[in-house]
């Protein structure tokens, strides 16, 4: 049961983080970049496996690099952000596939990084997750007013001297770190669900920012705890059960909001 305890602690920290981030992702319409960075992290993890260094660390560094590159290319070039994401995430995944092929180590670890493997979460992983989680949460909370301003009106925020470019890059770095933190719990291919679904759920249930954040965190934590429990008792992949639980909560919120709106309009 030790591994389950580790998974629950790591999962709750991750959910807290994704709950906050998901609100900004929804408000800033960055859902695709979440998907892009999480898939691109595979390249970093594969690089770590190939070079024989810690895949979590190489994953974080590589994802940050890709996140910043996406931001830079779309800002400096003549292409839009979604095109830039499309280029980087596919090429990073392709790089990952080649590196895994060369290293000839396609084993359960790689599968675990892609789809989550709670058995692989160690005590030291929890310490890394907790430290990164605290740092990222503190940054998000202290800068929430500026991030909200940028989400509302980026141009006016720029005119007002808010360091918009710096904050945009910082947000991408935070996104990259969160993606890699969630790798073992939910997997690189599914982490984007936790970056999007809790925020989307909260949109249906409140119109106030702090309430929205609270709802997103709560729904994210419930999804993770229930998902982990279901995966434990049914012996199925933890990442998939977490995502499906989050989706079920989303639809509950969706139908609740639709019914409430209909009642109010009558």
């Amino acid at each position, binding site marked *: 049961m030790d591994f389950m305890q580790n998974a629950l602690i790591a999962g709750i920290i991750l959910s807290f983080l994704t709950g906050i981030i998901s609100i900004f992702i929804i*408000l800033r319409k960055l859902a695709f970049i979440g998907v892009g960075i999480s898939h691109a992290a595979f390249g970093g993890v594969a690089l770590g496996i190939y070079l024989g260094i810690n895949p979590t660390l190489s994953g974080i560094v590589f994802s940050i690099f890709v996140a910043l590159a996406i931001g830079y290319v779309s800002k400096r070039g003549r292409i839009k952000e979604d095109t830039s994401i499309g280029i980087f995430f596919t090429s990073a995944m392709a790089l990952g596939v080649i590196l895994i092929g060369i290293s000839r180590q396609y084993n359960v670890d790689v599968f675990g990084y892609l789809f989550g493997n709670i058995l692989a979460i160690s005590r030291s992983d929890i310490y890394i997750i907790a430290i990164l989680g605290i740092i990222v949460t503190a940054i998000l909370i202290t800068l929430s007013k500026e991030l909200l301003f940028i989400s509302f009106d980026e141009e006016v925020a720029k*005119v007002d001297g808010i360091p918009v470019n710096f904050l945009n890059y910082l947000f991408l770095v935070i996104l990259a770190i969160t993606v890699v933190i969630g790798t073992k719990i939910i997997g690189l291919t599914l982490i984007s669900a936790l970056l999007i679904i809790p925020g989307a759920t909260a949109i249906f249930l409140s119109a106030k920012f702090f309430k929205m954040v609270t709802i997103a965190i709560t729904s994210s934590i419930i999804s993770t705890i229930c998902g982990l429990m279901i995966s434990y008792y049914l012996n199925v992949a933890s990442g998939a059960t977490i995502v499906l639980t989050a989706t079920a909560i989303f639809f509950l919120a969706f139908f609740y909001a639709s019914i409430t709106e209909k009642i109010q309009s009558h």
Partner: protein
Amino acid sequence: MYALELENVNYTINNVEILKDVNLKLNEGVFLGVVGPNGAGKTTFLKIILGLLKPSRGSVKIFEAPAHGTKTNIGYLPQRKQFDINFPATAFDVVMMGRYKLIGLFNKPRQIDRDMVIRYLNIVGMFDFKDTQFVKLSGGQQQRVLIARSLVSEPKLVILDEPSTGIDVVAQEYLYHFIKHLKHELSLTVIMVTHDIGTITSYVDEVACMNKTIYVHDKPEKSLTRDILAKVYGENINMIEHNEFCMDCNNFRKGK
């Protein structure tokens, strides 16, 4: 003192000339209307003043300080845009955003910031809506809240880009009247870009006619002549005098 000085400002992007030799000297306390056809470079002109774009050539000074590289307090109302219908901000929150540049990163709003937000919500007549979700307000009400946001840091120069777009005729007139009133009340210098050449003459002190460059900058009656408008907008222009057809509008103009 000049509130704004532009000297030989040029702006070119991808070899396309957007602004050419723009010269302008604007005295403090003046309400300037900038008119011109679509694609005349009006928004680029504003963005250069705001420091969002750097001119390819020429210099821009705001209250005698260079516009680029200096922290200048300018109130800005951008062109109306569609806001996310779920955006979780009340009218109060939106006006508070205008104080963030004074509050600074990592700091929370202080009592003085909250007092200023309330003051400006009162000035624009939106105090009763302070707790209403911004996106639930009507177009005219949203504009008033955004004007409050542009003023709440107490700038001396305010820039408005097409403030009346998407608002009905009576509300447009009300808005112009209201801006003129604020200009006097708060001793502001106001630059307003507009398509509404017929109506603004009653409200602005000076008009700049623009099409890549500023053709004329003078009193409205001297700038908005048939010859000048033909030069700026092309030959096919019919001038229709703004008469007293709209009684409400006329009352606003007369200050009733």
